[in-house]
């Protein structure tokens, strides 16, 4: 039951982009077309699930028992960046095709604050290793949903006649705002279901 709650909550209610403002740089940066957005989403889905699991593992086995939680920030960022490096090297050997399609997005993920954010949120919520991974996965799903929907809208926006001053980023941000209002509607869902 808790897993379903985390999954639904992560995708619809506490959506990383629309409710928590995480991962906005790539959200705006690589959402020019649906294809790129999908590639980025796959990479994020992969890394975020692993990062949340691994950081939770480190937190519960090393940092917490030895009273080192003040090293949280340093440890997490190092784990995430080496994980990204590892995933990139591994993919290059194991699946060159996948590497070619995800390759350019992988290094970008290190500075995607959503990955670190999801890891920090999991630890602060006190989730165990399994639930942390689920939380990371749910967050990544929500982020992917947001960026793919947004990329679709942006492709249309290219063809629309937008006032000169609003062209590009400003209209993209206003669109995101309107999507966020739509996602606010899901807030009642939780109270209704659980």
């Amino acid at each position, binding site marked *: 039951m808790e897993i379903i709650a985390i999954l639904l909550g992560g995708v619809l209610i506490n959506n990383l982009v629309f*409710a928590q403002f995480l991962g906005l740089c790539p959200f705006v940066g690589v959402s020019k077309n649906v294809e790129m957005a999908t590639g980025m989403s796959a990479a994020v889905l992969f890394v975020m699930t692993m990062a949340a699991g691994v950081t939770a593992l480190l937190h519960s086995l090393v940092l917490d028992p030895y009273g080192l939680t003040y090293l949280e920030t340093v440890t997490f960022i190092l784990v995430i960046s080496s994980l990204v490096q590892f995933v990139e090297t591994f993919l290059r050997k194991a699946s060159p095709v996948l590497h070619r399609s995800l390759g350019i997005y992988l290094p970008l993920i290190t500075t995607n604050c959503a990955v670190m954010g999801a890891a920090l949120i999991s630890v602060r919520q006190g989730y165990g290793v399994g639930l942390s991974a689920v939380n990371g996965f749910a967050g990544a799903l929500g982020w992917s949903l947001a960026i793919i929907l947004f990329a679709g809208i942006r492709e249309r926006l290219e063809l629309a006649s937008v006032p*000169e001053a609003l062209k590009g980023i400003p209209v993209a941000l206003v669109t995101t705002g309107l999507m966020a209002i739509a996602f606010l509607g899901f807030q009642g869902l939780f109270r209704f279901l659980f």
Partner: protein
Amino acid sequence: MNLWRILTNGVVKENPVFRLLLGLCPLLAVTTALMNGFWMGVAVIFVLTSSNIIVSMLRKVIAPRIRIPCFIVIIATFVTIVQMTMNAYLPDMYEILGIFVPLIVVNCVILARAEAFASKNPVVSAAVDGIGMGLGFTIALMVLGGVREFFGTANLVINGQPLFDAPLFEPALIMIMPPGAFITMGVLLALLNVMVNRGRSGAGA
């Protein structure tokens, strides 16, 4: 390059938020009020200036291939210092800013300045660049926070003191909710575009 130009470069010409669109996440997330924006800005100025200084000092020691991990460790150290200091002296603000204090470590403004400026310039310029960029970021945070707080609560709280006795008008709650952040930022950028374009056409005529 003189120091004054480096300083104003960060505030105006290459303002990290309004011109380069870096560091959007903390910008939108913590700006529900003016003072939140201010303290977040102070934290960023400290981290950015300190990391710029250290990166610049070590720029001849760090091997180019491993520079990014080195920069990240330097930045993370200063972020930890900020976290501990804030937790000790400003516990309320630390609570409000929440995970966005540790997330300064992945703020792209800081890594971008380490990579693009501090690793190629002497210590003094790097420090000034850090202050300038940090100030530019803080100004953006405070403008956005101020606008959102004003329309969202119809009041402004500075240093715990409300500026007006009663709300000035019916507050638009949406402004302090997530959608308000996106819409305000979009509109601010559009206004800035209008101003820049007008200035340019005025100068051309």
